[in-house]
């Protein structure tokens, strides 16, 4: 078991957030390919719930409630005592379980392996989808040109 205080919060925010946003299919495919699924016990079994999403008036002002979104959360502990948590978008209990196991493994000696086989490819896939949309958006950017100036 790794000393959990040594894991930087920023790094953990990174992989937990990535898995929360990940499409279920993409995460599960990579997780299934990763063979070394560890044994664990539940601290909190997967539970589907809602989170109220907030925005700000004018984009920057007073907060207000926009609407809820579905989230599934769970917590588990590996045999070495490492605790993994997950809060993932949607209603998939298996996605939450995989995310919590990965969160736990990322705090152990298996971290590099999990990063190489799951986290990094997942990140690349999601970045490719994002870049693809950004490229299509860029192609719809208006280039203005002046036809005739009306001074004379």
């Amino acid at each position, binding site marked *: 078991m790794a000393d959990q205080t040594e894991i930087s919060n920023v790094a953990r925010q990174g992989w937990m957030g990535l898995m929360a946003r990940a499409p279920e299919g993409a995460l599960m495919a990579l997780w299934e390919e990763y063979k070394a699924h560890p044994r664990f016990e539940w601290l909190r079994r997967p539970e589907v719930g809602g989170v109220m999403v907030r925005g700000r008036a*004018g984009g920057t002002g007073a907060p207000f409630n926009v609407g*809820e979104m*579905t989230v599934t959360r769970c917590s588990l502990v590996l045999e070495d005592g490492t605790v993994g948590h997950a809060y993932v978008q949607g209603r998939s209990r298996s996605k939450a379980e995989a995310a919590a196991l990965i969160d736990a493994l990322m705090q152990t000696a298996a971290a590099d392996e999990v990063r190489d086989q799951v986290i990094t490819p997942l990140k690349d896939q999601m970045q490719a989808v994002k870049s693809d949309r950004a490229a*299509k958006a860029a192609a719809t950017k208006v280039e203005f040109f002046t036809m005739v100036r009306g001074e004379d």
Partner: protein
Amino acid sequence: MYVAVKGGEKAIENAHAWLAEERRGPTDIAELSIAQIREQLSLAVNRVMAEGSLYDPDLAALAIKQARGDLIEAIFLIRAYRTTLPRFGYSNPVETGEMACDRRISATFKDAPGGQVLGPTFDYTHRLLDFKLAAEGEAPAAPAGQPRTETTPHITEFLKGEDIIQDEPANEDTPGDLTREPMEFPSTRPLRLQSLTRGDEGFVLGMAYSTQRGYARNHAFVGELRIGKVAVEMDIPELGFAIDIGEVELTECETVNQFKGSKTEPPQFTRGYGLVYGQSERKSIAMALVDRALRWEELGEDNLGAPAQDEEFVLSHADNIQATGFLEHIKLPHYVDFQSELELVRKLRREAEERITPKEAAE
């Protein structure tokens, strides 16, 4: 007299069986999948998520299938489902300035940094039926440009220095939540915005249109309209820090409105705000116009008695589930109520006839 009646179980059961059969339609036509609805009727899915007030495209697609495409019925199903969910908490306010924009336009600033990005819009289509879609819907890949990697700043940011546009200073006040506390009047702007973003698109559109036609006109331009995905972040108590818990697609509209100034404020532009789940452009613009109209008191404007200035009128009638519930309940059995009214009308008629008859007898 109260008479309990029972019956109709068999009729109801058979009606539901027929409903299921009609929903499926002729079996020689392929059945719709949830994925097909989610991906190919995505704007209907967006509307159900916005007005159902729950972001979950698969659930919204399921609701549309179950409701046979009746979007208000689908919204009803989503609202009913969301009441069964435990509430894990509230997110931190989303940063729309960090949005990965599919679309971003401004009607006021041609050369806004980040540019005018049209995105997958219906604008500039000729609104002619495309009969090719009736035969086959395959589309070639859309052209790609050089993707923008930096974030696209809000247009109002560029005017801030001049103090010529009203500022929206951040605060961390906890907003009221109308899913937890019933609406009370006078309300607050955060509650009004929550009510409008989940309000019926047709109603909010009609209210917004009324302001454009002169009922509390507020001279709105679309300062900025953006559509895209933003990450949703929440503080997680067991971790002691915040993480992204997902991402949602949002449409944000900021209007720039004329304001002649008041006793305390110099003339400057004011703003209306719309923020709606999904690609919901019409709704978002309408929300911003109605938000601006409802701010008359805060901005020291006159109450012109226009419907769009009356928050009690707007907010009490914006919710299509409340409205449809009350409207449609009158079709349910009211036999006893009607029986008593029937008795009353017969009695009144009898009395009226008796008043006339003795007079005639006396002549």
